[in-house]
């Protein structure tokens, strides 16, 4: 017990000093002292959760049905393009019924060739041995292309990865904000944006798929048929974005949003908001060719399967620039420009959970939480002092050191402090002294049994440690389960508890033992007042 070698004393002192040192950046954050903190010193500090810092938390879920539909559509386009390639294979209408593509091959001798070509469009799915689409022939002339389960799963996974990046670019085009965008559980994206108190703007940006397509208007379609939703082969009927009504356009996509170099909000000659587009080199070339070949014909601008407008091509547009006008406000034009520039979302996302806290409320919570922490700690300290005297002082020093260590560990791991985390902090302060209570009560007991002072202290620490260890394991079990199952704030609470349990064993057992040992060695007391 009294054998506390010098190097151990130095080691413990070093840990404590480091704890204080690493907790300083978190303590002075936001005050004027922060600027005086030397630049060579550590700057890692505790992140504040959205409930303390203010901000928006959104949980987005991919619309799986929409994802399948989009995948089917894009496959349909690829199939149509592939079969048109020379030597052309003539087929009937491509049906998308039942989530599968199927079509008749007009010339029965070409069935095998058609299957062969479609096979080239399918890809193996990693680790499964399956391909992403099954190509089969039914009734000797009908080719059926069905998505496989593993293919659909892989497609959704890929889509979520792209969607995550698109969401990030839309919310933070400059890439400078401290936002969190992560995929969760296969088909969800968690978005956390500190400082944003109006999540409506975020939702507007994320809510748009922003699939931009330019298609030629089908002038041969019978207007009466179009209003009933029927279009000639190779064309489709789409609704107008404004004012209702429908229009038939050719299925073939002439130019799409993927060939954009940039998009920004602008104004037309009359001062109305527009979205100004600049195509990349392929896009510009194709745009130039299509407009050259179709002068004086209407060109439909389609956003998310709605026709924004169908202006007439007055002259070939060769510069690779275009302007979309519609019924825009500056805000909606700007949102669309940001959405287009960040690329289309591969899958539609729905908001299934939203939590927003204003910065004022967050500040208020921090203020009240800090005051409650200080008062609570003082209460516990006072109680320990009147109960255990000198040993209460040691417990108090351990408590304060523990508070620094918790902050330091949280800062080093980049942990997030939430409002329930503050409660966890206060609770840890209350529970951490339990170890000292156990030790001190045991020492009292051993003294009552007539043990000599040093012997009593030694036995007290040794015998109490077993119970302290087992009791702390129960805390670790329940806190770990909270970390695993809990979401956001609850996890923040559990993280503080977990860190607090570990650091409190160090401070309450090891650190106080050192203090007691040093005191006994120096003062050589004859009796213990405990």
């Amino acid at each position, binding site marked *: 017990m009294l054998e506390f070698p010098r190097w151990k004393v130095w080691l413990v002192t070093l840990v404590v000093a480091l704890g204080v040192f690493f907790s300083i950046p978190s303590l002075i954050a936001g005050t004027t002292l922060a600027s005086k903190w030397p630049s060579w010193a550590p700057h890692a500090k505790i992140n504040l959760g959205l409930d303390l810092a203010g901000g928006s938390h959104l949980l987005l879920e991919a619309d799986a049905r929409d994802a399948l539909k989009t995948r089917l559509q894009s496959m349909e386009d690829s199939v149509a393009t592939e079969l048109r390639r020379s030597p052309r294979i003539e087929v009937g209408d491509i049906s998308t019924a039942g989530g599968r593509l199927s079509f008749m091959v007009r010339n029965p001798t070409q069935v095998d060739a058609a299957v062969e070509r479609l096979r080239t469009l399918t890809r193996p799915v990693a680790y499964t041995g399956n391909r992403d689409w099954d190509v089969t022939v039914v009734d000797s002339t009908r080719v059926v292309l069905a998505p496989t389960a593993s293919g659909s799963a892989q497609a959704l996974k890929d889509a979520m990865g792209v969607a995550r990046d698109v969401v990030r670019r839309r919310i933070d085009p400059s890439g400078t904000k401290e936002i969190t965008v992560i995929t969760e559980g296969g088909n969800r994206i968690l978005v956390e944006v500190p400082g944003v108190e109006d999540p409506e703007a975020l939702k507007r940006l994320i809510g748009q798929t922003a699939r931009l397509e330019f298609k030629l208007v089908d002038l041969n379609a019978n207007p009466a048929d179009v209003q009933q939703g029927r279009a000639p082969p190779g064309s489709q009927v789409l609704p107008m974005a404004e004012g209702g009504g429908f229009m038939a356009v050719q299925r073939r996509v002439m130019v799409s949003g993927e060939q954009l170099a940039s998009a920004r909000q602008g104004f037309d000659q009359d001062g109305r908001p527009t979205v100004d587009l600049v195509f990349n080199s392929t896009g510009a070339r194709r745009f130039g060719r299509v407009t050259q070949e179709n002068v004086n014909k209407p060109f439909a601008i389609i956003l998310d399967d709605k026709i924004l407008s169908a202006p007439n091509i007055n002259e070939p547009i060769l510069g690779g620039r275009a302007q979309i006008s519609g019924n825009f406000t500056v805000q909606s034009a700007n949102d669309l420009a940001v959405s287009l520039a960040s690329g289309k979302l591969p899958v539609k996302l729905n908001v299934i959970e939203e939590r927003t806290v204003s910065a004022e409320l967050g500040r208020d919570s921090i203020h*009240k939480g800090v005051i409650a922490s200080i*008062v609570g700690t003082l209460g516990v300290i006072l109680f320990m002092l009147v109960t255990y005297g000198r040993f209460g002082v040691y417990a108090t020093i351990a408590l304060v050191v523990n508070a620094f260590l918790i902050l330091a560990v949280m800062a080093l791991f980049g942990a997030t402090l939430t409002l329930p985390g503050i409660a966890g902090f206060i609770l840890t302060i209350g529970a951490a002294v339990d170890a000292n209570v156990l030790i001190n009560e045991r020492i009292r007991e051993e003294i009552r049994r007539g043990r000599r002072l040093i012997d009593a202290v030694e036995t007290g620490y040794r015998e109490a440690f077993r119970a302290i260890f087992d009791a702390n394991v129960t805390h670790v079990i329940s806190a770990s389960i909270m970390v695993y199952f809990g979401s956001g704030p609850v996890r923040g609470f559990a993280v503080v508890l977990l860190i607090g349990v570990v650091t409190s064993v160090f401070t309450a057992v090891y650190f106080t033992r050192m203090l007691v040992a040093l005191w006994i060695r120096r003062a050589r007391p004859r009796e213990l007042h405990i």
Partner: protein
Amino acid sequence: MKLLKLVPDHTNIDFMRWRNLAVILSTLLTVASLAYTAYRGLNLGIDFVGGQVVRVEFNQPVHIEDLRARVAQLGVGEASIQALGNDRTYQVRLPRPPGAETAANQVVSKLRAAIPQQFPGARVDAGESVSGKVSEELASDGLKAIIFAMIGIALYIWFRFEWQFGVGALLTLAHDVSMTLGFFAFTQLPVDLNVVAALLTIVGYSLNDTVVIYDRIRENLRKYRKMAILPLLNLSLNETLARTVVTSLTVLIALAVLMAIGPEVIFGLAIAIFLGVLIGTYSSIYISAPVLVWLGVTPHSFLKTEDKDSPEAQTA
């Protein structure tokens, strides 16, 4: 300086004398709590049933009926409005609208836009919307977490002590959790995610107390081989009584401060843990210990595995 001693040096309280009465009472209360919780139901927050909550701060006092009337005009369902401490801060809760998952979220958008229009100078301080799907997951995750924590801790106790102690721990935990639920059913305090965190903390804390007592029982079982089980339990409880009282008090002091002056958002969490500490202190004495009597714990329970060097173990 005279030090404070809440528990005198040599207590000799016959705790086990009332063990049958205490266990019958606890069983009745546990069953009553569960039955009442099932009958009355918990006041589940939007975390667990879905819906939306908006917290509004007005720059002047607003009458609750006035606010209720204006919210009703929006046609977003039956709002439940609650004042938060004063007549300028209110919480408006709306039920989950029927229809698609996305509908719920649009209601919050509507409310967020409408309130500042109706009451100039009002500020929406916080808004939450949870869809049915997410709330179902949160509820099932919360339930799973509590059950897994109870089983995990009981298994650990079994591993560290003996199976009788594991059973005792599990029963103690079931008692504490049921009683806390009964309290929430009785007071109809809202149950949100924080309360689940509180229940898990109670699970950890209550066992903390039980473990300390079990540790002492184990020690005494080895020390006094010939002592009958009841006096031995009483001795162990008396020996640890001072620690039980002091630790419970420190935790209660910290929590009382949190309840009194802490942020009101975590009031539910604080009061649940406060109550759980009281219940846990009681149950570690009157549930954990008596269970050992019925399950037939004797000094021999520890001989085979742990005291290999002792003569008794070699002959056994």
